[in-house]
């Protein structure tokens, strides 16, 4: 029997996931005959597209929390910022097809704007918007991270001030006067890159892009964990002082990781918005960010595929139970988190290993008993 190394096994896992998402799912959607077990409906595909965006956020948080030990309770903020940046472009692309037949977004019309605010104008350009998807979350993360890491805020403190940050941003975006649509956020998009946004072909394409993007993120993380950078990252998690006293500027490392994770989540947000058709400040609520943490914990932190599995599983469970057990889904979800934390510290991914451990222990005890019995 050939023994595969840990890295080889995870690479195989990533390739399998990539194949499933990028090739198999679109194929089943396109060629599976309707009604058959193997067919994936447009609705299902769209739903999965949403899950994949969540999965990327989970992956980005895992990069921070799982591999670097930085528990960020504001990852939803970066996701939402990316979503808003792209959403602004989509809003402007509605053109005069909105309720008021005005070139301004609808919400501006009824709030009495006469012209587009200056900071909206560049978002008419697609390339600027795409850059903004990268730079807005990146810069926010950069500034905040610089301040926080320089002041050596970490652990619980870091978790709580990231929560405060996202809460402050959430309040800010809820304000109607903040020119981002207030509570309603952005909705009623018509086109994306010139295609009708809700057309099945567009949604299929968006799913495909999300799947490819997720796979790229997974490969990136896989590669990163192999590099010295990745090793230092984990070393920071385990013993930051030792790393610092070994001549590494941990502030710089953490800042880079924080910014990369924010950008990764921001792009996911940008892909999420055209698929669900809305972005509003709810996405910045502290509870949303907490949910992301839970996805990672459920799937298995500090593993490459864990966050993906966690995000998809929890969101699938949410879709399922809000349909079948609307009264109880919060209890189901809550109980799941408690049970995972208490009994599955390594998450779903760690479950086989955990079970194996139990089995061994059991067998050992059983043998001991048997031997004792034999001796007697």
């Amino acid at each position, binding site marked *: 029997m050939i023994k595969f190394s840990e890295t080889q096994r995870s690479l195989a896992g990533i390739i399998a996931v990539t194949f499933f998402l990028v090739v198999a799912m679109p194929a089943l959607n396109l060629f599976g005959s309707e009604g058959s077990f193997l067919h994936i409906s447009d609705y299902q595909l769209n739903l999965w597209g949403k899950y994949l965006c969540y999965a990327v956020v989970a992956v980005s948080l895992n990069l921070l929390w799982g591999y670097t030990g930085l528990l960020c309770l504001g990852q939803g903020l970066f996701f939402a910022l990316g979503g808003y940046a792209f959403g602004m472009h989509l809003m402007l692309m509605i053109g005069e097809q909105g309720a008021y037949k005005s070139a301004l977004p609808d919400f501006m019309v009824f709030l009495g704007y006469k012209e587009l605010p200056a900071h909206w104008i560049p978002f008419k350009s697609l390339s600027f918007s795409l850059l903004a998807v990268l730079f807005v979350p990146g810069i926010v993360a950069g500034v905040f991270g610089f301040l926080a890491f320089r002041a050596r805020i970490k652990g619980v403190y870091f978790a709580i001030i990231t929560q405060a940050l996202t809460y402050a941003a959430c309040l800010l975006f809820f304000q109607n*006067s903040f020119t981002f649509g207030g509570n309603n956020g952005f909705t009623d998009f018509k086109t994306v890159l010139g295609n009708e946004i809700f057309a099945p072909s567009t949604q299929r394409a968006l799913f495909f892009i999300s799947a490819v993007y997720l796979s790229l993120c997974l490969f990136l993380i896989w590669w990163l964990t192999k590099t010295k950078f990745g090793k230092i990252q984990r070393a920071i998690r385990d013993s930051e002082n030792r790393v610092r006293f070994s001549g590494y500027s941990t502030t710089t490392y953490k800042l880079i990781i924080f910014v990369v994770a924010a950008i990764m989540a921001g792009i996911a947000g940008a892909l999420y918005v055209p698929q*669900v*058709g809305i972005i509003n400040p709810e996405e910045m609520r502290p509870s949303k960010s907490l949910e992301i943490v839970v996805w990672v914990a459920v799937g298995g932190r500090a593993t490459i595929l864990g966050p993906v599995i966690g995000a998809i599983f929890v969101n699938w469970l949410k879709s399922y139970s809000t*349909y079948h057990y609307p009264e109880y889904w919060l209890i189901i979800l809550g109980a799941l988190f408690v049970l995972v934390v208490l009994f599955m510290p390594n998450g779903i991914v760690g479950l086989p290993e955990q079970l194996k451990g139990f089995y061994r222990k059991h067998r050992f005890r059983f043998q001991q008993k048997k031997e004792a019995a034999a001796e007697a």
Partner: protein
Amino acid sequence: MKFLRGVRAGAILSAGALLGLQAQAEEDDTVKVGILHSLSGTMAISETSLRDVLLFAIDEINASGGVLGKQIEPVVVDGASDWPLFAEKSKQLLLQDKVAAVFGCWTSVSRKSVLPVFEEYNGLLFYPVQYEGEEQSPNIFYTAEAVNQQAIPAVDFLLEEGREKFYLIGTDYVYPQTTNLVLLEYLLSKGVPLRNIGGGLRRDADGEVISAGTYTPFGHTDYQQIMADIKKFAASGDAAVINTINGDSNVAFFKEYAAAGLTAEEVPVVSFSLSEDEFRSLPAEDLVGQLGCWTYFMSLDTPENEEFVANFQEWLATADVDGIEREGRVTCSPMVLSYDGVYLWKAAVEKAGTFDVDSVVKALESGISFDGPGGTVTTQENHHLTKNVYIGETLPSGQFEVIESFDEVYGEPFLKGTFSEE
């Protein structure tokens, strides 16, 4: 440790069982309709009642033979106060369950979030909650009160009462903002000077007013500072407060109002988001004498209403719905407008002779009337309803005493800019 292992095994097993429990039944002599409300999360407090009344209406129709000979099968889904989930659920209802119509949504944002879905997949949504207007989708029927069916009559009433100063306060979202902007125009058109409008104005660079009133975030609980401001504003007498605060915050608002020593006689508050249903969780005695304006009150003294209330109470006592509240239930305007919606849909389906959305919409646009508990409602071509408007004064029992009514008010969604200053 053994115990823990047992628990773990149990948890895994039950999770497995849970996933396996996906039974599906489909019958040909039924027609599915969707009920899309939040049954959990922050909006559950309001929306659960709408689910109940919708199920009641459907049971009532089924008992009397259904629609076009088919029994209605309600598909209840939980929007969970989560707006993207609303969009997802509406897609699910339209694409997977292929429902003939959907009744649902409360908040503007949930409606905005599902609107493109309904337009894309040509669904039909009945929307029952008073809203800011400025919208008219071909796939939505707004049984809700438009601003001119609630805020404007209320202001007319206050002006007639001799009120001269108006303080605008609301929760910071689109409904209060838009309503107050419309009211600002309206008040100015009625000759109320700008300095008599309290709460603050925000202007854009050209000096044009873009926002009027004070706004607090959702779930705000600290109204001390605002109350001090209202007290100053009202010190010179003849002031009224126009309140578009949403949900729980009202409790904090009115408790603070009482603590500041203000009374309904001196400074009446007219609230647009407080119905009988909200009074179940509000200290009604703190609100006695305050005003409400809706197109239905539970206290309406008509045979239709008495029958509706009695039947609903009877239905509640025996309804087989998970987690339904049976005690202390009341009826209110959004509930009745939901109820009206189901019957209007039924009438339209029968008129069209088919469940096909386009035909049903056409039938609705042609003008269908229904003698609902709040009086006759008639559909309009612009997808809104003509209905009666009532102004009520709060009683300690949490009911309203009707003190004024306006008959057959035409629903007009686009009001901004329609009033000009005298």
